[in-house]
């Protein structure tokens, strides 16, 4: 089947659906949006109330059981990574762990001052080889980094600094994503040389990264691939697996995230997938 046949058939499908779709009145959609807006405000109020009631319990409970499910107001108040946290791939052959709080960020778009260092209070780094989850690709050097900061503003500054540097130094970046209350933000960064891929495959390289901030925590997954035109292993699916243990430790959670696949790593029991969540694109200025 040629391209134009695919296009024709899809366009006929599109026309058929467009012609037969009856949209709800715009006013109804706006009312639904307004209700969501009101609901979000109410949820914040409830969250503050719960926080006030449970604050004492949370302070005691966090160290006692850092892996219990995160609750309202339970994140953003840690400045050290709990020793009991086990990140994905820890202990696996070929993976190294570092607890150096001043470790360099695996992504430094302009190769100058590390935007993730100011205000950082703790860090954990896992380095290893990539996994071919979605498509075959050459082995990748993969780095998972969890950074904690003195406060939310410092983490936000690190996130914004990476985004600004990426834009200034030739990295492609995605539309920033955020959850509904904008406490969690995510950005995909990529730099590659695909120009040589068709001619000299061995010279192809790709540096791919995902940055997620939640409260005073920043998570950075980075993958450097050489000799392949395939994507690295930072698909949403795998990102869910990576972040699950960190979220359970009440650190980085992608609250409001939608993952198309159960958030369960290979080899683990798929009995209790993370509930679907929705993450929305943030604004991109014209």
């Amino acid at each position, binding site marked *: *089947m040629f391209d134009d046949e695919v296009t024709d058939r*899809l366009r006929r*499908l*599109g026309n058929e659906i467009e012609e037969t779709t009856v949209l709800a009145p715009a006013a109804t*959609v*706006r009312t639904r*949006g307004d209700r969501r807006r009101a609901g979000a405000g109410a949820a914040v109020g409830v969250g503050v109330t719960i926080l006030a009631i449970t604050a004492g319990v949370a302070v005691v409970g966090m160290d006692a059981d850092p892996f219990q499910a995160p609750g309202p107001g339970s994140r953003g108040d840690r400045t050290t990574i709990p020793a009991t946290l086990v990140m994905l791939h820890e202990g696996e052959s070929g993976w190294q762990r570092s607890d150096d709080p001043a470790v360099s960020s695996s992504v430094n778009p302009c190769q100058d001052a590390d935007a993730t260092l100011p205000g950082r209070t703790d860090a954990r780094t896992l380095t290893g080889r990539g996994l071919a989850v979605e498509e075959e690709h050459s082995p990748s050097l993969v780095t998972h980094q969890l950074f904690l900061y003195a406060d939310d503003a410092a983490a936000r500054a690190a996130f914004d600094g990476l985004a600004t540097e990426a834009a200034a130094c030739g990295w492609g970046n995605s539309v920033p994503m955020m959850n509904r209350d904008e406490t969690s933000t995510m950005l995909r960064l990529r730099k590659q040389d695909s120009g040589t*891929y068709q001619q000299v495959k061995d010279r192809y390289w790709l540096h791919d990264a995902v940055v997620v901030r939640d409260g005073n925590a920043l998570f950075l997954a980075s993958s450097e691939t050489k000799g392949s035109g395939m994507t690295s292993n930072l698909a949403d699916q795998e990102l869910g697996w990576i972040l699950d243990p960190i979220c359970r430790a009440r650190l980085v959670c992608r609250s409001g995230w939608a993952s198309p696949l159960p958030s369960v790593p290979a080899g683990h029991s798929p009995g209790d997938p993370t509930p679907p969540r929705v993450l929305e694109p943030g604004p991109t200025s014209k």
Partner: protein
Amino acid sequence: MRDSSEFDAFYAATGRRLVAQVYAMTGDRAEAEDAVAEAYARAWQRWGTVAHCHDPAAWVRTVAFRIAVSSWRRAVNRRSAHARLGRPVPAPEPGPDTVALVRALRQLPAAQRRAVVLFHLAGLSVGEVAQETGASLSAVKVRLSRGRRALAALLGNDQEAPCSTTR
């Protein structure tokens, strides 16, 4: 202050088209309609910023797709449950050509299906598909190539190998 007339005009101009695109991506029209409606509600919720996005329709499509995929997971689980129980799932569909195409699309891996729909139905360039899906240019090209090849096979329109006339 959010401008409702501006939002209404945007909704009227893009709503049906996005339903069609999300339907082609997910294969479930009801889910697509729900997801698109919910995505527009969210767009209105933060219209002050979405209106200034480079492409507000792409914002709505991305949100709708994520909502629909999330719903699609539940639907797949429901279908699996129905299959286990031996209960057929009633699925009223449009014309036979559309049914065949949607059925074929459903059999593509999600990433290929999304790339094919964005490129061929939404009319995005390879670069735009890469940006919207967070994939590299080469990955998008591979997905399009594989997706088209798989669609051709599924729809039975493969070019047949030439038959030799000499013995």
